[in-house]
């Protein structure tokens, strides 16, 4: 499933996540002539975040497609292209604009493999810059992952680092299943070295980011950085936090979380999406069932309120930050 090739020469210099995704897409276009990139403004402009910058020039209009303005059209035609053997990577310009395509995603894309009893595959990737924290206007800061993770037939992943972004986008393209690829847009410009030499972690596995002993802190996408910062701050106060980057939301790597919670006895989950019916709820339910006798505190959740994403100048109070995470950690420890 995952491209396991190792490329000579590991060092790339620090690369932003936006650029890393672009590099990964370029590799996918080079490796398989069936790979396509499509969406609003992905060609000439290189996307509003410049993730696809340069691809039109190098791969041409047949493979890098500036589509008409309609998300149902983008995903619906991508399904058709996939049925014809292509591997379309669709860009949805912002999280809040994926909903016009919801029917195509939920009723066609997610179901065609099952409906056809495996005869058809629809390896479509849907890239969505998601989440808040960039001071944007409405509909540009949403975290719709629970809608997709609740939908059978989709895989849902979110990288938190440039290196994961580079590899996971390639894994997503080569996956035989449809993949919703959530890009934490407020981390687009954070830089790190890519590791081109070693083979990547499978797309569906969580990663232990920081070992710790007292509390397990689970995050994904944009909140992984928040979790790491929280762990660092906690360490100053003598609290040892283990940080796990989920990476995949469907499937959820509950085994990895369970293994950690068995050691720490406490779990805090942090995401930007509303807490209510968010990924934290599912983790809370599963981990409580699996670790009922070893949990020292209930699973606590830190995330968005059950309100529409608020205006930019109050978003810092909506978004989980280090303080709110530590508040939950303290509560977990106080049980």
């Amino acid at each position: 499933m995952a491209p396991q090739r190792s490329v000579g020469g590991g060092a790339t210099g620090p690369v932003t996540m936006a650029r890393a995704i672009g590099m990964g897409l370029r590799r996918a276009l080079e490796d398989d002539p069936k790979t396509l990139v499509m969406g609003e403004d992905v060609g000439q402009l290189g996307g509003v975040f410049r993730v696809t910058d340069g691809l039109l020039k190098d791969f041409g209009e047949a493979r890098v497609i500036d589509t008409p303005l309609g998300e149902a059209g983008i995903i619906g035609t991508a399904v058709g292209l996939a049925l014809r053997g292509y591997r379309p990577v669709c860009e949805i310009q912002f999280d809040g604009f994926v909903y016009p395509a919801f029917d195509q995603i939920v009723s066609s894309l997610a179901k065609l493999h099952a409906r056809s009893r495996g005869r058809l595959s629809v390896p479509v990737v849907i890239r969505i810059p998601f989440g808040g924290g960039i001071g944007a206007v409405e509909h540009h800061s949403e975290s719709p992952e629970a809608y997709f993770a609740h939908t059978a037939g989709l895989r849902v992943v979110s990288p938190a680092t440039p290196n994961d972004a580079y590899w996971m986008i390639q894994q997503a393209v080569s996956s035989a299943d449809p993949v919703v690829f959530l890009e934490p847009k407020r981390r687009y410009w954070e830089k790190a070295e890519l590791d081109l030499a070693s083979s990547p972690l499978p797309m569906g596995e969580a990663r232990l980011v920081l070992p710790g002993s007292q509390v397990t802190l689970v995050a994904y996408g944009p909140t992984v950085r928040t979790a790491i910062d929280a762990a660092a701050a906690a360490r100053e106060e003598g609290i040892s936090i283990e940080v796990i980057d989920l990476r995949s939301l469907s499937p959820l790597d509950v085994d990895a979380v369970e293994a950690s919670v068995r050691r720490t006895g406490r779990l805090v989950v942090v995401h930007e999406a509303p807490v209510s019916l968010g990924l934290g709820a599912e983790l809370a339910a599963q981990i409580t069932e699996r670790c009922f006798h070893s949990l020292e505190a209930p699973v606590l959740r830190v995330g968005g309120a059950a309100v529409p994403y608020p205006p930019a100048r109050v978003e810092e109070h909506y978004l989980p930050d280090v303080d709110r995470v530590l508040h939950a950690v303290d509560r977990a420890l106080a049980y």
Partner: protein
Amino acid sequence: MGQVASAWDGTEVGPDPVQLLTPAGRRVKHPSFAADVTLEEVRGFYRDLVLARRLDTEATALQRQGELGLWPPALGQEAAQIGSGRALTSADHAFPTYREHGVALTRGVDALELLRMFRGVDHGGWDPVATGFHLYTIVIGAQTLHATGYAMGLQRDGRVGDDGSAVLAYLGDGATSQGAVSEAFVWAAAMNAPIVFFCQNNGWAISEPTSKQTRIPIYQRARGFGFPGVRVDGNDVLGVLAVTRAALAHAREGGGPVLVEAVTYRMGAHTTSDDPSRYRDPDEVAAWRARDPIDRVRALLEREDAAFAGLAAAVEREAEELAERVRSGVRSMPDPAPLDIYDDVYAEPHAALERERAEHAAYLASFEEVS
């Protein structure tokens, strides 16, 4: 390839529908479209039409007996379906709604495969790749976008031009209101994709007459998107064949999309769950019965084909065999096994689902231990 020379220059044709065979079974000429078919082909259409209708009658009966969960009859629409289905080459690809049973037969889908989803043992049932006939799509209009994307794939495969192939996307009159269908029109036009949208205007979307969807004829919708629309008598198999062939040829050769409106009538209920007496006038149904698509081919052959009596008898026998095979085949279709529901959700292993399957298996096994 089944392509015929046609005088059609890609301009809009309507509101009078193209007609090459009158309800009385007489051939008429049309300035742009010719029924360029041999007698042998017409005999074939007769067979197709009769078998399609027989399948329909049989499936309706099986539903009444509780052997099928549901059946959406194509009764009355056989000419629209056989005419368009027979216009396809084996390299073309069709995207049906849920009612194109006649087209399915022309694509080599076995009647029993077709009935699997209506029996409730499957959501699909046939091989869409081998048949060039995509699975039925129940979500109104969704397939028109898939079809457009597939046509974009043909373009990328270099399959447009001489020896090109095309896509035929079916839709209903009601479907023209869905945003997805308009987006398909936008995409097809913007991409100049090799696709023909084939709208069977059967007068009704469940209980709503076409006038609830549009105040102008449906073939004219294409005008607004910059491609040609053609209206054809949907109960005239020769007219439908000629128009669809010409439209497909136009698309295959790089002319871009065409919208065909086949004016026909749903003689039966919307589905076996429906009661059309609540919303439509029996006189309307009677008027359309006089325009029956099979009667006019029979009339033509009775006049032009000396051997028709033999054909009619042979087709009747074949229909009887089909009916019998369907009856016994449906009854003996095994139900899916409980754990089948976990199959093919993903093409590659999905850890969370594997866990659910294992738990379900253990749960089922716990009963076996007991018993």
